[in-house]
């Protein structure tokens, strides 16, 4: 075997502390080395040409470059080796910069260490095997989990790029929280008016497979090759027959047994229902828990009125598997539930604000429904208790957020803006009404956001009081809000007709369970973790899984949409090539030696080890051995260290190579 050694000065970086010509001279005497030189900048074009020319002229089989860290230039030198006609994995590097010159002062000792490291690399490269990059095929289909504004945007972007999308939504309709909103800050345009066209676009898009009332049950596989099992919950309506005429809904006799969750519990819905009139798809769902038919087998009014025979009481949940290349998580958020307060619960309620006790103390989304033209009051300001128009409304910010004692220390980010919007909407409709906002800080970063808050104060006369409210209690038909204006240093008491709590955004119900199912990390609040907080905010740490919208942290609509489009772009980067290339530094099992103890399976952090059956000619299983999935293996070497029979080897770092390196020291 003919080996070439190339020692780099890295300008002064190595040359200052290491006597490079001496290292190069010493290397000439290592067994197997036929060529050894040193040069000022090995990574430069002339430096690379030196390597290429030497390989060609001297017929080198392998090379060792003594220069910087492999993190810096391994790719460069491997490419040079490949260009000159040898396998790139027959190029090794000795780190003479980070491991020697940058950490030592003594020239004599540093030079000696550089010689040692070079010798070790030479001994290793002698035992290197030519390796080929692993190629994994990519299924060019995207799964989007969640059909809110983020999911809708991501699905449309990917589909418009020409790739198939499966959009899974757990509710009967897509639209998410945005469909519940009245008007949106800072422009006050109607939420439904800008959202519903997009919902319809999703429904009609030939590249989007829309699966509502469905949940992701299982995710197997790896980047480019996920196998996803989706549970389609039984609607008890034959979607292929239903025309969405709504006759079953109007005739259903069960009118007041179930709260309408779209109206945030401020209205009832029948047993057969669509969440809201603009629902997509416009196909109802029968609620088994309240429908009389499921109690005693009677009623069946819907069956009688349905002209299409679409009612299917015996319909069962269906499991569907999909082949997917990339997953976009867009599961959104839910609102902090202020009424819930069991002592052992992570969420502690706000008993002091009387939510759940006083009907006119409501949360942010309930206010949205009251303010919405399609809401239970048709957009007129009527308070829930007696339907009277409230003349004095108090808005309390930071309810559930920025409150360690209640379990959530983060800022929910959107509440300052939505409270300003709420107060504004109220003042626009009730001219003689008064709106008070209790705040701690006003956080209105964003285009036209600060201007919007000032508009509420200066133009609409909303009164902002700095301080947290301590208590809300009822007295003579009024809700007394006790607070302090910390600027004036004065106690403030307001006799309100209605109190609106600016409740925080928190992680979606069961977000952590879903994260475990999909295989991505999440934080202590249940928000999904990004791979890097600054430079990789869209990717999860699992390859091929991306994040969009409020499932990652509280976000408003423009941010969610931007993130969704970014996630869509990331999937398109993935789909840009037919095959994914991976470094061949993966574990390999010697099936002859493997005893099938599967300790490796237990320790593998990436679930990359599978069971393979070895059969004889007649198809009888002789033994089971471990098998490494190249797509999942990250080359950490844990299995190699664990295997009792030494039958797993890490390619490029075999035991033989490592021992030879140590022996050369």
């Amino acid at each position, binding site marked *: 075997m003919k080996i070439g050694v190339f020692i780099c000065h890295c300008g002064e970086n190595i040359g200052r502390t290491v006597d490079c010509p001496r290292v190069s001279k010493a290397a000439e005497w290592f067994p197997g080395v036929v060529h050894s030189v040193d040069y000022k900048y090995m990574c430069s074009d002339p430096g690379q040409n030196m390597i290429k020319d030497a390989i060609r002229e001297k017929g080198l089989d392998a090379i060792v470059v003594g220069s910087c860290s492999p993190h810096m230039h391994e790719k460069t030198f491997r490419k040079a080796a490949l260009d000159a006609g040898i396998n790139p994995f027959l190029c090794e590097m000795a780190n003479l910069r980070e491991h020697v010159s940058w950490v030592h002062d003594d020239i004599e000792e540093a030079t000696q260490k550089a010689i040692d490291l070079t010798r070790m690399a030479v001994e290793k490269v002698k035992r290197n095997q030519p390796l080929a990059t692993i190629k994994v095929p990519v299924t060019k289909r995207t799964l989007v989990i969640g059909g809110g504004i983020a999911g809708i945007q991501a699905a449309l972007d990917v589909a418009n790029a020409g790739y198939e999308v499966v959009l899974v939504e757990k509710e009967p309709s897509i639209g998410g929280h945005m469909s519940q909103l009245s008007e949106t800050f800072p422009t006050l345009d109607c939420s439904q008016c800008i959202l519903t066209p997009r919902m319809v676009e999703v429904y009609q898009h030939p590249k989007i497979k829309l699966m509502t009332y469905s949940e992701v049950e299982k995710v197997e596989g790896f980047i480019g090759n996920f196998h996803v099992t989706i549970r389609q919950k039984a609607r008890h309506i034959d979607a292929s027959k239903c025309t969405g005429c709504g006759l079953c809904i109007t005739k259903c006799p069960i009118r007041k047994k179930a709260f309408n969750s779209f109206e945030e519990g401020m209205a009832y819905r029948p047993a057969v229902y669509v969440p809201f009139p603009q629902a997509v798809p416009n196909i109802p769902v029968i609620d088994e828990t309240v429908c009389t038919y499921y109690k005693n087998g009677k009623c069946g009014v819907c069956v009688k009125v349905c002209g299409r025979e679409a009612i299917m009481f015996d319909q069962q949940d269906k499991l569907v598997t999909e082949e997917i290349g990339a997953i976009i998580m867009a599961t959104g958020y839910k609102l902090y539930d202020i009424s819930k307060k069991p002592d052992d619960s992570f969420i502690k309620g706000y008993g002091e604000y009387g939510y759940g006790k006083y009907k006119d103390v409501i949360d942010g989304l309930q206010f949205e429904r009251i303010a919405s033209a399609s809401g239970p009051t048709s957009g007129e300001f009527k308070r829930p208790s007696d339907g009277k128009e409230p003349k004095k409304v108090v808005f309390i910010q930071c309810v559930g957020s920025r409150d360690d004692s209640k379990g959530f220390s983060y800022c929910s980010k959107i509440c300052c803006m939505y409270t300003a919007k709420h107060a504004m909407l109220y003042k626009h409709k009730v001219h003689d009404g008064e709106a008070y906002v209790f705040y701690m800080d006003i956080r209105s970063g964003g285009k036209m956001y600060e201007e919007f808050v000032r508009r509420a104060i200066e133009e609409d006369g909303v*009164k902002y009081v700095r301080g947290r409210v301590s208590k809300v209690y009822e007295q003579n038909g009024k809700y007394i809000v006790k607070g302090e204006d910390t*600027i004036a*240093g*004065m106690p*403030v*008491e307001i006799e309100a007709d209605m109190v609106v709590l600016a409740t925080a955004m928190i992680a979606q119900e069961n977000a952590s369970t879903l994260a475990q199912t999909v295989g991505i990390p999440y934080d202590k609040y249940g928000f999904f973790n990004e791979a890097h907080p600054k430079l990789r905010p869209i990717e999860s740490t699992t390859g091929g899984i991306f994040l969009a919208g409020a499932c990652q942290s509280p976000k408003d609509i423009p941010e969610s949409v931007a993130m969704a489009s970014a996630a869509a772009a990331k999937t398109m980067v993935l789909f840009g090539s037919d095959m994914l290339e991976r470094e061949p530094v993966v574990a390999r099992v010697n099936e002859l030696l493997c005893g099938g103890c599967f300790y490796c399976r237990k320790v593998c952090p990436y679930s990359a080890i599978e069971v393979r059956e070895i059969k004889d000619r007649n198809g009888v299983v002789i033994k089971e051995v471990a098998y490494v999935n190249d797509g999942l293996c990250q080359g950490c070497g844990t299995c190699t260290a664990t295997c009792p029979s030494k039958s797993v080897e890490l390619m490029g770092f075999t035991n033989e190579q490592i021992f030879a390196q140590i022996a050369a020291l």
Partner: protein
Amino acid sequence: MTTHTSTHASTIADEIAEKTFQDVSLCYQCGKCSAGCPVRYYMDVAPNKIVRFIQLGFYEEALKSSTPWLCAGCQTCSTRCPQEFDLAKFMDAVRELALEKGVKVKEQDILKFHKAFLHQIENFGRAYEVGLVAEYKLKTMHLFDDVDSAPGMIMKGKLKLLPHVIKGRKAVKDIFIKTAEKKQTKK
């Protein structure tokens, strides 16, 4: 401090807006005015807090405070305000309202000085220093305060013994009469 219930009838805030052509809601309580105020240390309440009192409807606290009276009207605050709220003008309006509402003014001496000053203007059409000093001292009975600075001022010609009379003396007097009439009709 007593507990207050704010009411909708923000009359004083409205009157201030009428007098100064600016709404108190403009102020976002950054505190820059108080930070730069040269007489802040003698005030019982910071200037921004007076605005806050008016914003919240704590009118009594605002009108009773010494702050509007100690305000020298130097306009440092008005010049520096990020919201371009003219605080000096606002303080003027607060002083006027305090008098109109018959609030007991904490800084009686300053009020007497203002009155003496206006009296001189009314009579001579401009300030007559010796007359002003004499009237102020008689009103406050601070007869011998700052007397030692008088000789120097006389030597430099800062204190003229006889009043300087302007041409439009009658017109100035008319302004005082008309203002008084206007006040009368308003009541």
